[in-house]
């Protein structure tokens, strides 16, 4: 019976929906996390009687045909790349992006990844790195005897060296932007990779047209809204239950047929 398979596709879809929601809730406190949403579409239809086909020679037509659907499919789990709230941390190497753009990160295997998580550190050589120790951008080195590191809205990194009165320019944090940000592939560790769907990275300076600006001593929080996630979770759970009821009802119908003898 088709209803069994149809309800099974419904249960699978809702299971995936709950997975996506639980991942959003689990990452509610992850810096720079962008929530995802499961998107569904109906599957192909079986046309048992086509609407619009002729029912008589007098030109009468079928006003509404018989179309039986075959369930639901998941088409995408796009990320919603909206701005998360910005929180003050008072750490001088915490940088939040306000607006469009990603920091580019050099992975140990030579590839470039992109992130919105600006909780940077200094490694043994003084290079600005991510919390995992990957170099940020082309590698800005903060010398040992520097103090008062400042990163301005345009991404320029400055520090006072030795006992200098004026700050020294150390480099610029650049931003990468994509035509289709939703097409980026998430690789974990708050990092995204470029794909054929995202288009190539467009490198620019913060505050240029089309790019956001930077805010030092702040971090961008996740853009997950707890209330809407929980209400989505409830809706998904109930939908799952209803689909399982369909399986039960279809099973009862089949068993009453089987018991006809």
């Amino acid at each position, binding site marked *: 019976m088709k209803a*069994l398979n149809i309800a099974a596709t419904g249960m699978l*879809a809702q299971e995936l929906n709950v997975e996506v929601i639980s991942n959003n809730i689990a990452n509610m406190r992850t810096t720079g996390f962008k929530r995802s949403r499961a998107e569904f579409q109906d599957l192909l239809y079986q046309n048992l009687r086509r609407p619009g086909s002729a029912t008589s020679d007098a030109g009468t037509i079928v006003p509404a*045909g018989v*179309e039986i*659907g075959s369930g639901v499919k998941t088409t995408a789990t*796009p990320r919603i790349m909206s701005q998360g709230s910005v929180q003050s941390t008072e750490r001088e190497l915490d940088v939040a992006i306000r607006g469009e753009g990603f920091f580019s990160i050099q992975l140990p295997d030579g590839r470039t990844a992109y992130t919105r998580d600006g909780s940077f550190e200094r490694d043994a050589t003084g290079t600005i790195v991510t919390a995992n120790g990957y170099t940020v951008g082309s590698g800005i080195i903060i010398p040992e005897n520097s103090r008062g590191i400042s990163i301005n809205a345009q991404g320029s990194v400055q520090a006072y060296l030795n006992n200098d009165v004026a700050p020294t320019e150390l480099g610029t944090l650049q931003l990468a932007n994509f035509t289709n940000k939703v097409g980026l592939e998430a690789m974990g560790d708050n990092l995204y990779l470029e794909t054929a769907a995202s288009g190539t990275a467009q490198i620019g300076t913060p505050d240029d047209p*089309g790019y956001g600006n930077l805010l030092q001593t702040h971090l961008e929080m996740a853009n997950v809204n707890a209330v809407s996630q929980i209400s989505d979770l409830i809706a998904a759970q109930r939908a799952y239950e*209803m689909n399982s009821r369909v399986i039960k009802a279809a099973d009862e*119908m089949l068993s*009453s047929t089987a018991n006809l003898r």
Partner: protein
Amino acid sequence: MENAELISLSRQTALRRQMNVVANNLANISTSGYKTERSMFSEYMMPVAEATTFPTQDQRLSYVWDRGTLTEFDAGPIKLTGAPLDVAIDDNAFFVVETEQGLRYTRNGAFQLNTEGTLVTSEGFAVQGEGGPISFGPTETNISIAADGTISSSAGEKGKLQAVTFDAPQQLTRAGSSLFAGEGAIPSQSLFTQGALEGSNVRGVVEVTEMIEVSRAYQSLANMMKRFDDLRKDAVQRLGTVRA
């Protein structure tokens, strides 16, 4: 006696199809822009399939015929999503989407950009504006969609979303992937809401009650067929008893 079984059988076949329709509705309870489907039945006076040796004039057999499925086009709930490329469209209009098979119509406004910056559906089909597909450059930001469908970004006005209505929406066929196919689209002025999606108009309660109704009706028919069978067995036994 076989006539009763034939009639029950016609009802059971129709009920199975109705169950499939209900299952499809419930499976799509969280599909954006999905429209509920309903089964329609009518009485069918059966002129041929009769198991009566001597047909009588006043005993007409009426079978059940599932004449069609109709789509309930009433609007689903509008959910705010916060994504800039999610668009909800008012009451009875459709978005126009270009597929390989030609123009298709949808109420699912969960749009995205592709590599070229063109506005597409989640299947990658281009969404039609009044002057063709709508594209954005790589550095354009702040995409906003006004209530009349005008799309603008940091680079100025980009186009206007196309909306169509149909005189006879029941004539539309479902093409899967939230798309409808059909002819006779009439351009219309519609209201658009950015950052919102139209949910499925499936009402869980209605579907579950219909499902219970279907499964009980099916069971009662199965019982009825069993009774007829018993009756026949009885008849065969009694009539077949030979008195020595």
